[in-house]
């Protein structure tokens, strides 16, 4: 029995011996403690070395893998942490090999846009009668894109109901297109504007037509490169029916043997922007799961959320995200805050997302010129779309969300006196407006070509004169004005406090001890915002290792999914179903529309619907019926006998607990697993219930769509590129009790915390 004693039990025992002093401390922090049942009575007890290792893994990685706890203990906590703080010292070859399937993710936004043109580009080309590129690959992609665009236009014209959209869209893209397109990005399965669907929906039986002079069978039998070229030669109006005539098995053969570049081209024929969107989301998720530079991944996620951008902002944004993650955020995730702040301010992704790229000084040269133009042609689209003055969106959010924080806002009913000390004299609406003037001219060079030239300062758009910001007179000095304000903001005690608090909420607890925050803020100021130093201060704080914060954090959906995959040592050959699962779990990647980013608090993530989705995800994943993701429990446990087992064994259950939770579960969880894991057919029932029909076993494409499509209907999914469909076959056959046990543990209350 002693062996089965769980953590809660252990802590309860220990708690009885706790000393009065710490008890008083707990009473002061009552609500905090009460939130954490697992830490119910651990006061006065220190974490064991094993618990410390698990705690560190839970907080500084996306969850422990089998063997990680022992590895950390062996290396020594501090040494392990220092190694993680210096990601350059960690070889990430495994991840890089995996990400090699997404060659487009290495491209600049401009190259991405060239190779995978946006729907808007097609619109422009159609209007200007631009000839198609001569390169055969580009020619085919553009020809198909144009055909798709024209079909859409025809469809809209036929519907008639849609009023023409004029002037209103400077982005030059109708909202319907934007919506359809955005839908395609985050939920490719639901993309009704799929190039392939509008034509004929009925799959014909009997003899099939020839395409580009060849039969379907002959095309599929060609070697990869020739096959690709042959498909590229099929005229756009026939390509749709070619695809539709493919039998499920043949869809796999279509890409069989192709290298990633070839597969990308093939996928681009169906919708180039979707290749960009899908690869961006897939590679972000895979990095979180498989990178050995886990702290870098965790901090990259933290900053991507802090400096949130939104994939569906407009048609350009998807092209900017891979660079935003790769070039702006990740290299600085463990660097100096000011560098990061300036880098985000200079990133096309952020300038686009918060509209600053369009903001111009009302008295700037650009405004004067615009006004002249408007007098000349007052009702022209161009005149209406031309920016005429400032847009304070970015200036406000930069102050309110990125740096000193909204608690320092001063207004009629929040006086300076009411502010907390770190706020100093706070900020006002005038500061926001003036900072917006300072930021005029910070824009994007050739924004419609993937932000072609990247960040640029356009003097002609900049508002002249000196500006008063946060009590300081900013003298006229072009782009340097904003750098001066960014420096003021980055080094402000209010920012130090705000960022430290947010980090502490991410890493320590929902209501972190003030002492840790204060210590971190002090380091922040002393080190010039050095994230390594700030994290070290947190790591060295006794509060971080307090049993009261042990397992106190509820996982966000991303942490839940990533930790489940890591703990299970799951093999992901197609991450798209996982990306779509994130939607279901309420946390789509790059999918937070508002600039505050996702919450780090449990309150936001524990809801009835969220729990249902987590439990279903756990079962489907453990049973291997989540398309593109495979689990091998026998291998994980190093025990081949579990596959053939007919009844749940406690030994297996305990081994699973250690593998998945990194520590024994609470006794009640164990009991529930043992009592319920002996019913056969559970995963099958789950997959049926989740509308994972019979096709799921053999066809990942449809399986993925059905898993995430609300209606469970037959929708086309995007299967990812660089993969053969036959690689993706998954099934729930031979489902033994181990599958149910693992699924139950992944969906258990124990696994929802870290």
């Amino acid at each position, binding site marked *: 029995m002693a062996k089965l004693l769980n953590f809660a039990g252990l802590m309860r025992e220990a708690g009885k011996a706790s000393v009065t002093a710490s008890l008083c401390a707990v009473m002061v922090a009552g*609500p905090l403690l009460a939130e954490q*049942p697992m830490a119910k009575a651990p006061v006065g007890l220190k974490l064991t070395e094993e618990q410390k290792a698990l705690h560190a893994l839970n907080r500084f990685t996306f969850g422990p893998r089998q063997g990680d706890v022992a590895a950390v203990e062996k290396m020594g906590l501090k040494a392990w942490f220092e190694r993680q703080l210096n990601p350059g010292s960690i070889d990430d070859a495994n991840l890089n090999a995996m990400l090699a399937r997404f060659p487009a993710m290495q491209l600049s936004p401009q190259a991405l846009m060239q190779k995978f043109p946006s729907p808007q580009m097609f619109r422009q080309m159609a209007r200007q009668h631009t000839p198609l590129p001569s390169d055969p690959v580009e020619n085919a992609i553009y020809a198909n894109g144009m055909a798709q665009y024209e079909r859409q236009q025809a469809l809209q014209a036929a519907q008639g109901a849609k009023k023409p959209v004029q002037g209103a869209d400077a982005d030059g893209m109708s909202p319907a297109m934007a919506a359809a397109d955005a839908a395609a990005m985050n939920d490719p399965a639901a993309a009704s504007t799929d190039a392939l669907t509008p034509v004929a929906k009925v799959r014909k039986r009997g003899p099939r037509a020839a395409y580009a002079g060849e039969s379907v069978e002959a095309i599929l039998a060609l070697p990869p490169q020739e096959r690709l070229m042959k498909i590229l030669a099929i005229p756009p109006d026939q390509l749709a029916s070619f695809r539709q005539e493919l039998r499920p098995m043949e869809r796999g053969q279509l890409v069989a043997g192709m290298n990633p570049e070839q597969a990308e081209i093939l996928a681009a024929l169906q919708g180039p922007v979707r290749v960009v969107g899908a690869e961006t989301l897939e590679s972000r998720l895979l990095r979180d799961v498989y990178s050995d530079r886990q702290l870098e991944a965790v901090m990259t996620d933290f900053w991507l959320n802090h400096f949130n951008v939104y994939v569906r902002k407009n048609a350009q944004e998807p092209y900017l995200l891979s660079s935003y993650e790769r070039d702006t955020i990740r290299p600085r995730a463990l660097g100096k805050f000011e560098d990061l702040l300036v880098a985000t301010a200079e990133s096309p992704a952020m300038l686009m997302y918060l509209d600053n790229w369009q903001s111009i000084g009302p008295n700037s040269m650009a405004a004067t010129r615009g006004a002249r133009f408007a007098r000349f042609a007052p009702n022209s689209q161009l005149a209406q779309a031309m920016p005429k003055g400032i847009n304070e969106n970015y200036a406000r959010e930069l102050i309110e969300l990125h740096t000193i924080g909204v608690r320092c806002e001063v207004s009629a009913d929040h006086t300076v006196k009411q502010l907390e000390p770190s706020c100093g004299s706070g900020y006002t609406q005038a500061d926001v407006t003036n900072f917006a003037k300072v930021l005029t001219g910070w824009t994007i060079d050739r924004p419609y070509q993937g932000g072609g030239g990247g960040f640029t300062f356009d003097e002609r758009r900049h508002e002249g004169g000196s500006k008063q910001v946060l009590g300081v007179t900013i003298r006229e000095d072009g782009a340097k004005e904003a750098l001066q304000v960014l420096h003021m903001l980055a080094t402000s005690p209010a920012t130090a406090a705000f960022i430290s608090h947010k980090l502490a909420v991410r890493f320590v607890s929902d209501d972190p001890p003030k002492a840790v925050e204060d210590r971190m803020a002090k380091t922040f100021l002393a080190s010039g915002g050095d994230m390594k130093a700030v994290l070290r201060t947190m790591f060295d704080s006794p509060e971080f290792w307090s049993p009261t914060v042990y397992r106190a954090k509820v996982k966000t959906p991303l942490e839940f999914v990533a930790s489940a995959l890591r703990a299970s040592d799951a093999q992901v050959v197609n991450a798209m179903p996982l990306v779509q699962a994130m939607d279901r779990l309420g946390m789509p990647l790059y999918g937070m529309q508002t600039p505050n980013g996702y919450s780090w608090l449990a309150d936001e993530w524990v809801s*009835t619907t969220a*729990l249902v989705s987590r439990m279903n995800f756990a079962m489907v994943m453990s049973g291997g019926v989540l398309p593109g993701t495979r689990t091998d429990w026998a291998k994980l446990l190093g025990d081949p006998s579990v596959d053939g087992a007919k009844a749940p064994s406690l030994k297996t259950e305990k081994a699973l607990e250690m593998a998945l939770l990194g520590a024994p579960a609470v006794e*009640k969880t164990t009991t529930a697993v043992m009592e319920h894991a002996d019913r056969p057919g559970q995963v099958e029932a*789950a997959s049926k*219930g989740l509308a994972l029909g019979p096709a799921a076993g053999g066809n990942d494409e449809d399986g993925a769509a059905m898993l995430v499509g609300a209606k469970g209907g037959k929708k086309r999914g995007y299967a990812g590129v660089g993969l053969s469909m036959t690689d993706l076959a998954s099934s729930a056959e031979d489902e033994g009790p181990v599958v149910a046990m693992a699924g*139950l543990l992944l969906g258990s209350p124990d696994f929802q915390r870290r």
Partner: protein
Amino acid sequence: MSARWKLDHSDWGCDMAGRDLARRGVSRRGFMKSGALALVGTSAIPAFLTRSVMAEVTTAAANKKKLVVLFQRGACDGLSVVVPYQEKNYYAMRPTIAIKQDQVLDLDGRFGLHPAMAAFKPLYEQGHLAIVHAAGSPDTTRSHFDAQDYMESGTPGLKATPDGWLNRALRDEKTSGKESAFRAVALGTQLPRTLQGKLPAIAIANVADFSVGGRGPATSPISDAFQAMYDQSSDAVLHGTGAETFEAVKMLKAADPAHYQPAAGIVYPNTPFGNNLKQVAQLMKANLGVEAAFSDIGNWDTHQNQGNVNGQLANRLKEFSESIAAFWKDMGDDAENITVVTMSEFGRTARQNGTGGTDHGHGNVMFVLGGGVKGGKVYGKWPGLDNDQLNEGRDLAVTTDFRNVLGEAAYRTLGSRNLDAVFPGAKIDPRNFLNFS
């Protein structure tokens, strides 16, 4: 499933007595569980109990009115929604985005609806739709997130308020017997601040697949296993929500709301918001005991190129008004018992900005639609749009506290009498109601 588990309920079921406060926590979430669940939150509900719960729910729903609360997140530009088309300065301040006099759908000779909201016009004319203009928060923050938080908590300026106004309003309501798990429901993956609090409230993203381990009339073995874990968990947060989850799953299985299709001729816009309202209708038609429902619709933050008669805002307004009108018609006779109220955290600047959009402002417009509503009228004192009448020289001023509107809706629809508890410190007095209902 074993007797042992049932014994345990006494010490978690009743937080009213405060016995388990320490264990459940005094955080927002910790407060959210109620004694009602103790009876039905077991892994296997005896059939007689299920029947009696359902029966009561049915009776309750037949007698009770329902409040639907809709939040336009992102600060909707009220001045382009209900247009003060007699204001000269409106047109001076908005050279390219104003809705022209001859384009509005005239309401009363002073105000006109945005033409994209044609679906609202008949509701207004039939006297079901009331409009409150220049409504908003007494707090002047221009932060979306703070302003939403204040509006949802119902306590402008106070961040520490642990619960939402609607949760308090429901708690204040006089009830007898057990309450339905569906009494307060939000459509979406997260429970909004508006509904957080002591009273259990559930979030549902999709009615049709709200089920653990498979659809069908009975709960699956997996569901039972998970339920056993969550029932038994000493993790207050997960335990409480788990109990709500499994009860809701069972009730949904029994009632199968998804089979209630929209009434003939009713088409909801095929958008998340349209779909949410369709599901609210399904839950209500299934007699699950819904008293308060919440949904939100985002994308109102039109800093850039908001458009005028057409464009971003127009598209949003079309979806918004058509979804609500479809819901109203879909509910048929039961619409008489329903009140819908809409809000947005603040309005937008009276002047257009440099990029064809509007920045964060202050006063805004609210809609109230209902069987008992005295519609066909624009309520509230109009502050005017002359330069010297603007709030801080830039926005529509606020003349009606949003809590006065919500208070009246809660008072008349839910029967909340203790408005001091619903909106602490606001001094909402029924004698000062706008009397739109």
